[in-house]
């Protein structure tokens, strides 16, 4: 189990050392969200109506940015071989990578989503629900993203292929995430969509690392 935590610790240390890469995803999130008031007009009611969707889609796209380096750098410099020889099953290596992606990208996005939502005039009642939905939501993005990133290792133009693989998978995540926040802003019950997100997370937690692990094994062969 030590090897598992040391992969996470090492990746987090690297993401702090290469802080610019980590910040790039956050800045992308803020800037992309800030473009919407310019595009759809600054009317507060319009923005409040669109806010959950804007935050979700921008967070999703921002979380994709660091994915092609998630395994890419390790594959190119030989670290991936050493990770697979660390004595951990490949699926656990992938899970450790997904966890470090969440800590370095998902968690910061979750924090920045609060000021961005306020900027977009999101309803006060909907804000906690939006964040509660983003919590399993960003974790799902990390899991789907890890599986996708493992599949495109070594592929030519993998960075272009990756969003094409991952984005369709995230459709249900966006649907339920936005539905929960919408329901909350209209004063309706928001429990069901949040539970659906939690169920998706419970399904993806074992399945995505298994798929990613198999892809990692295939990539080094």
């Amino acid at each position, binding site marked *: 189990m030590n090897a598992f935590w040391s992969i996470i610790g090492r990746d987090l240390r690297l993401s702090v050392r290469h802080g610019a890469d980590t910040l790039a995803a956050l800045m992308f999130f803020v800037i992309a969200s800030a473009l919407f008031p310019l595009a759809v007009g600054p009317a507060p009611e319009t923005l409040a109506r669109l806010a959950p969707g804007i935050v979700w889609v921008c967070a999703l796209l921002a979380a994709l940015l660091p994915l092609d380096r998630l395994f890419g750098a390790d594959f190119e410099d030989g670290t991936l071989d050493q990770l*697979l*020889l660390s004595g951990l099953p490949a699926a656990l290596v992938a899970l450790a990578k997904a966890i470090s992606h969440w800590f370095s990208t998902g968690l910061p996005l979750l924090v920045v989503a609060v000021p961005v939502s306020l900027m977009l005039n999101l309803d006060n009642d909907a804000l906690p629900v939006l964040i509660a939905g983003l919590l399993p939501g960003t974790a799902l993005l990390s899991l789907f993203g890890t599986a996708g990133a493992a599949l495109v290792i070594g592929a030519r133009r993998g960075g272009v292929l990756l969003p094409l693989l991952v984005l369709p998978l995230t459709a249900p995540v966006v649907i339920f995430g936005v539905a929960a926040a919408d329901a909350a802003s209209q004063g309706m019950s928001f429990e069901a969509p949040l539970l659906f997100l939690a169920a998706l997370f419970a399904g993806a937690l074992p399945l995505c690392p298994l798929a990613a692990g198999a892809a990692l094994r295939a990539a080094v062969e």
Partner: protein
Amino acid sequence: MVLEVQEIAAVRGERRIFGPLSFSAASGEAMLLVGPNGSGKSTLLRILAGLGRLAEGVVRWNGNDTLADRAAHAALVSYVGHLDAVKPGLTARENLGPNAEAGLAAMALSHLADQPARFFSAGQKRRLALARLACSQAPIWLLDEPTLGLDVASVARFGDLLAKHRAAGGIVLAATHLPLPLPEAKELRLA
């Protein structure tokens, strides 16, 4: 402790790279893999490490089929490939992980322990990759061109490391085109 390789072969696409190939290496033994470029030396090492795909044959460790459980097999081997697996953003000590001091001392890198590896020369990165061997307890060392880019003093130091490993009962398999400090090594020629 004995590593037995029975009738193994590697296939890439439709082409057979080598095999069927059989050999064995016992405690303290060293084996040099020699052969022209493209003869499958690296492929053989990756298969023995549990990374490459074994097309046919069996690899046994003390009589057990060791590649059946790759996570367990990983505890037996320490692999140094063409790539150094050195992260430029981490210091030498952080790159080696637990047990770093033994590795740093073995390859005379202690004075650089807290330097980020991006300041290292190619030879120093190679030494850091080899230092990883000294940090592990694995009995089987699989080395792919280990001394490429090393200076004479470092090759001698690496020779001491290899000798110590063999004296402790370890096994060394190395692919190389350069003379390696491995006295009384058996030679395995791949065509």
